[in-house]
């Protein structure tokens, strides 16, 4: 029997989180190099449609772990059920998407098994029989190749959103094994309530063709007026990285990133944004990215098409002057 890579697919409210398919694609890619096989597991209640969708991927098996107590996510139930499941099957490697839900239970699950999770990997390397996971450190300023200190089994790692392409997951026909489990009374200590959204989002940035986004480099709230004027000249909208919204300078619906909106406009101008991972996952699909930042080492330049290393306050005013001239037909 070859070693197994087990993918933990994620569902919420009986809907498959599409990022799970990226993890399946990652597992298939690693399996090709290592000769290991891929299995997929999903937890929940009333998840037949999800099982069917996963069974249409190329995998040796799909496990559907079902219980009414898994209908709403709790870390307590997930850790309890998965600990037993993984201890029984001992896969070499467990792969998960780096979602908020996984972040909530995976470290605890690993420790309960005496293991560790390498979190938020953006890729992997298989070098001379050694599996390394590449992850960003220091807010994306550096990358690290990380290995497990032991020989396995039960290595665990999570992959960042968009590290792999979900539509690249190979199709096939996998047998489904359904496991009915129960969670003993007292295991679940928390009471989760309905998932909700705040009052309807006022701005849908995903419809915008041009975005001017500001980060810490904007320095003061009053300087937002300048960025707003630039956005207006471009017929676009203003957006921001998380710290700007945390400070209350712009409402939360203007935030781009993992906890805010995901956008892919034709043009994205990043003003004073360093480019932390959490921001980049929300905007890296933009067709053209122009970054202005005084720090030449800022990670935003890794993904920018056009870069300007300068103080944004030196560049934006003359830029707007030139734009106005062009618009007025001066050239």
């Amino acid at each position, binding site marked *: 029997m070859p070693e197994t890579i087990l993918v933990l697919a994620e569902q919420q409210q009986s809907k498959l989180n599409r990022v799970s398919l990226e993890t399946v694609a990652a597992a298939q890619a690693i399996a090709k190099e290592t000769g290991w096989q891929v299995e997929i597991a999903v937890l929940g209640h009333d998840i037949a449609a999800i099982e069917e969708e996963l069974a249409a991927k190329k995998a040796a098996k799909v496990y559907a772990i079902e219980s009414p107590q898994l209908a709403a996510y709790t*870390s307590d139930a997930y850790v309890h059920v998965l600990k037993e499941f993984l201890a029984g099957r001992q896969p070499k490697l467990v792969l998960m998407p780096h*979602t*908020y839900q996984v*972040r*909530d239970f995976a*470290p*605890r699950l690993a*420790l309960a098994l005496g293991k*560790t999770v390498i*979190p*938020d990997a953006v890729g992997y390397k298989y070098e001379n029989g050694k599996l*390394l996971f590449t992850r*960003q*450190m*220091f*807010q994306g300023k*550096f*990358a*690290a*190749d990380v290995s*497990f*200190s032991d020989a396995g089994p039960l290595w665990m790692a999570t992959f960042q959103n968009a590290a792999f392409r979900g539509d690249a997951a190979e199709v096939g026909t996998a047998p489904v094994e359904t496991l009915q489990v129960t969670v003993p009374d007292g295991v679940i200590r*928390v*009471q*989760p*309530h*309905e*998932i*909700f*959204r*705040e009052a309807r989002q006022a701005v849908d940035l995903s419809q915008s*063709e041009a975005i001017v986004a500001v980060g*810490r480099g904007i320095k003061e709230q009053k300087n937002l007026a300048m960025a707003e004027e630039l956005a207006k*000249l*471009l017929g676009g909208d203003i957006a921001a990285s*998380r710290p700007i919204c*945390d*400070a209350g300078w712009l409402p*939360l619906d203007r935030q781009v990133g993992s*906890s805010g*909106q995901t956008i892919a406009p*034709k*043009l994205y101008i990043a003003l004073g944004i360093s480019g932390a991972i959490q921001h980049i996952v929300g905007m890296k699909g933009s067709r053209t990215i*122009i970054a202005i930042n005084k*720090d030449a*080492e800022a990670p935003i*330049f890794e*993904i*920018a*098409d056009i*870069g300007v*290393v*300068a103080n944004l306050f*030196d*560049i934006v005013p*003359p*830029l707007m002057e*030139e*734009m106005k001239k*062009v618009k007025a037909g001066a050239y």
Partner: protein
Amino acid sequence: MKILVCIKQVPQKDAPLKLNEAGTWIREDVPYEVNEPDAYALEEALQQKEKHGGEVVVITVGPPRSQQVLREALAKGADRAIHLADDSFVTLDAVSTARAIAVAIEGQSFDMIFTGLQSDDYGFAQTGVLLAELLGWPHATIIIGIEKTESGLRLKRELEAGQYQWMDMPLPCVLTIQSGINKLRYATLMGIKQARNKPLQQLTRTHLEGKLGTNLQTIERLYVPTKQKTTEMLQGSPTEIAKKLVDILRNELRVI
């Protein structure tokens, strides 16, 4: 409410970082500051204490220089501090860090432990969750609202893509706090003065002898990430750059 807040000292956000010669870590001669989500965790603890009474204790695991973040926390209003101090603690993984904290607080009965949701250096986002497992307590992550109820806490969790969830949680528990949950305060002159007389307990590596275990994951190498795209870097005076940008916006991208 007796609250422990785990805080960490990390390189300042705009500090230029360089690799060490071995390519295993950064050069340490950079300016440092408190990890931003940890500052929000501390503020939340201070506000909970103001509402419900109790004690706020701050703890950090790090080299001697990291005492600075404890001093700042005491100046902002924390009651006492614990410093697990050793140069080698810089390389602890999340499990070892959680173990160190668990050992340091043995016998102290906290109602709540707060951490920031992740650190700006390693970015593990694990220490709080692991600490909960070591203590056998329930936990919740990425919290942006905390209300005390008769039986425990009512928490507001941030989910992805603008979604939220309320949940009820018994005490004691561990919570990882999201940035923006509150408005940060500044230390007052009076606070800075009072901080000098507040207890700061120093624990060394010998205190943890045999209780840390080994790191379960190893950083093989650290490097500047390979570029995913070719970036055209524009040079010149601000006016020249502005003209080049306008040319690109107009003739290549056709957005103006």
